[in-house]
């Protein structure tokens, strides 16, 4: 029994399952928020899996997701700016909750690994993840108001 894998399974079933429900139903403004949250939750899952399987090189996946996940949300925010302009999605509670999960996982992993360059890599991934998702949330809530057909 591996606690890291258990935590990953819980976040996967509860968190990503809920975002899957959110992206499958409801108005567009809810779906884009759910898409953002799914990448914000999958990144800590990948970190937990890397620790659970004891494979430090799997951290690269989490790093790439922390970089590209927010970019994907920015793509939606930018190209759907017209549709979202009337009633911009604001989901700061869910965003900060997902950021809290990410921060908690990163700090737990930092505590579990020996201090060194691997710790810095973990902290960097966490910073990119949280910063990216907060910026993406902000972009969804009206960061592209000045964009017209461009």
């Amino acid at each position, binding site marked *: 029994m591996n606690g890291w894998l258990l935590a990953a399974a819980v976040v996967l079933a509860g968190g990503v399952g809920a975002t899957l429900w959110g992206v499958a139903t409801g108005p567009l403004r809810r779906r884009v928020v759910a898409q953002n949250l799914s990448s914000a939750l999958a990144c800590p899952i990948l970190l937990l899996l890397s620790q659970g399987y004891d494979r430090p*090189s*799997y951290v*690269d*996946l989490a*790093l*790439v997701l922390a*970089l*590209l996940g*927010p*970019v994907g949300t*920015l*793509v939606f925010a*930018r190209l759907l700016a017209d549709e979202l302009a009337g009633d911009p999605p604001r989901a700061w509670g869910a965003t900060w909750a997902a950021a809290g999960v990410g921060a908690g996982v990163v700090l737990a992993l930092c505590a579990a690994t020996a201090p060194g360059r691997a710790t810095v890599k973990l902290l960097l991934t966490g910073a*990119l993840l949280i*910063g*990216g998702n907060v*910026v993406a949330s*902000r*972009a969804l809530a*009206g*960061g*592209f*108001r*000045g*964009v*017209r*057909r*461009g």
Partner: protein
Amino acid sequence: MSPRLRLWLVCAAGSGLAALLVAACLDLPGFGGDRHPYGDRAVDASLARRTANTVASVNFDQRAFDTLGEMSILFAAVLGCVVLLRQTRDEHRARPEPAHVDRPVRRYTLLVLPVALLTGLYVIAHGQLSPGGGFQGGVVAATSLHLLYVGADYRALERVRPIGVYEVGDALSASAYVVTGCAGVLAGTAFLANTLLPYGTFNTLSSGGTVPLLNAAIGMEVACAVVVLLARFLDQAVEIEEVRSL
């Protein structure tokens, strides 16, 4: 063909496929078993050539010829897109309107672009050591450039993306792969045989013989191909308009 007949045909073909799949599943080895005849041989071969990532060894050493085929598919697909999405005679270009993006989003873009580019190049360079390789890293690097469109302005992207350079880079890196393969023939072995370079020390950047070179060629090819592909899509979506000839 009438809809009724079509439905019958689909049902017959579907049930035949289902029967074959069920028959195949009944004969499969157990899930997660410990007998992997192909896997054991692939790992042995990759360790003999001191390549830490067995997948990279399969892709760029044991099955390097298959990767050449995959690269040609991507190359041909991008070529087809370039031909299909060109500007035709009854279309004209409209200047895209400038976009004003919120300052935090713009700052995030300018900060993350170099980091993502460096990560993409890191994934390419460490393809033989850690998960990843030319394809993955190339896509990450190409995506990082398009952050400029997403997080800033289409014209900003156009300023840093001279499309001709990427088209030439695409062709050059595709031929670099073939040339590396031909070098094996010239050295007296076989096409794409990994016998040219010393295998190096296990788990270092120079290990694996020609695997890192082929990885770099594929990485550059994929990055250039994705940039060219997205340039055509952006052209069509942002700039090219039909002339209203009514």
